[in-house]
């Protein structure tokens, strides 16, 4: 992902925030990006470190919403109201100065903002505790159904091909070995011409077999990694896993 793509995706997902907040967020990440770049990191490396822009946006939105609860949420209180009431009930805390006032309020805020965040997250993106995004699973199922799972069939065909050629390679190798042994027998019993010809074929078959087997082993390793990556990416997309905390 390029810096531009990452930033665009982030902007898209926080667009509902007030413009000055959006500017602050972009300035923050822009500054960090430049600091990383100054130390020689590549663009794609840096945004990979930042993480999935959607996850980053979710974090920003969640924090913003918990600090700025919507006014029509009856159950979630107004910060100022709490500050005033706690100041009345515990005059001692005022003696110790603002920082402890802040702390008392913070402890009271610990539970409710957490709940509001969870509710809003659940409403906004349909994530459960384990983070699986329902709408993505549905989209994925529909895509698979309508494309006749052609993509996955193609992957299956590739793997079948790999297996077939691997077996062919082994077959050629073994067959060639057998032929070579038999041809040696021919030479020994006097049928030199036929024996040598057959030996040639046998050795060639062994060579082909070895070549195919080595080729298939390499290809299988490659395809295994690619297939694993593909499934991991799909899984991540479905569950919107965070790539970095």
């Amino acid at each position: 992902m390029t810096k531009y793509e990452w930033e665009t995706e982030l902007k898209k997902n926080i667009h509902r925030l007030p413009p000055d907040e959006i500017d602050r967020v972009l300035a923050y990440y822009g500054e960090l990006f430049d600091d990383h770049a100054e130390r020689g990191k590549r663009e794609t490396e840096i945004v990979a470190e930042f993480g999935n822009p959607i996850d980053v946006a979710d974090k920003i939105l969640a924090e913003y919403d918990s600090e700025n609860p919507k006014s029509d949420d009856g159950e979630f209180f107004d910060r100022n109201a709490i500050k005033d009431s706690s100041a009345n009930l515990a005059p001692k805390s005022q003696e110790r100065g603002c920082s402890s006032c802040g702390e008392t309020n913070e402890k009271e805020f610990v539970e409710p903002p957490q709940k509001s965040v969870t509710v809003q997250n659940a409403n906004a993106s349909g994530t459960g505790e384990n983070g699986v995004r329902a709408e993505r699973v549905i989209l994925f199922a529909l895509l698979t159904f309508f494309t006749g799972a052609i993509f996955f069939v193609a992957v299956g065909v590739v793997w079948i091909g790999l297996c077939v050629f691997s077996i062919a390679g082994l077959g050629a190798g073994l067959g060639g070995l057998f032929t070579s042994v038999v041809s040696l027998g021919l030479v020994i019993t006097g049928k030199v011409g036929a024996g040598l010809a057959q030996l040639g074929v046998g050795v060639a078959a062994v060579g082909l077999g070895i070549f195919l087997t080595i080729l298939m082993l390499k290809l299988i390793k490659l395809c295994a990694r690619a297939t694993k990556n593909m499934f991991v990416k799909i899984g991540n997309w479905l569950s919107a896993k965070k790539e970095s905390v």
Partner: protein
Amino acid sequence: MDAQLKKGLLELCVLVSLKKEESYGYKIITDISPYVDISESTLYPILKRLEATGALTTRTKEYNGRLRKYYMITEAGKRKIKESISDLDELRRIYDYIYRDGR
């Protein structure tokens, strides 16, 4: 680790990293990374929160032809560190208990 506990500890770590001198985003992360897992996306709300509670102030300075935001600890922030250090003694007793008798 419990999310709230970690959040509180991270806030403290950020404040401590600002105690001697002002700092900026990248440097804060580099300074506290050896001690605690922190990423760019985790730091942002922490800085916002600390500013909202008056524990730090910010200013923008030019650096190498670009703008950089610097964070400075306030007296309130320094007080917060002092108060939390006494909490840490209790935390260490609890930690020792769990570590010793919980294994």
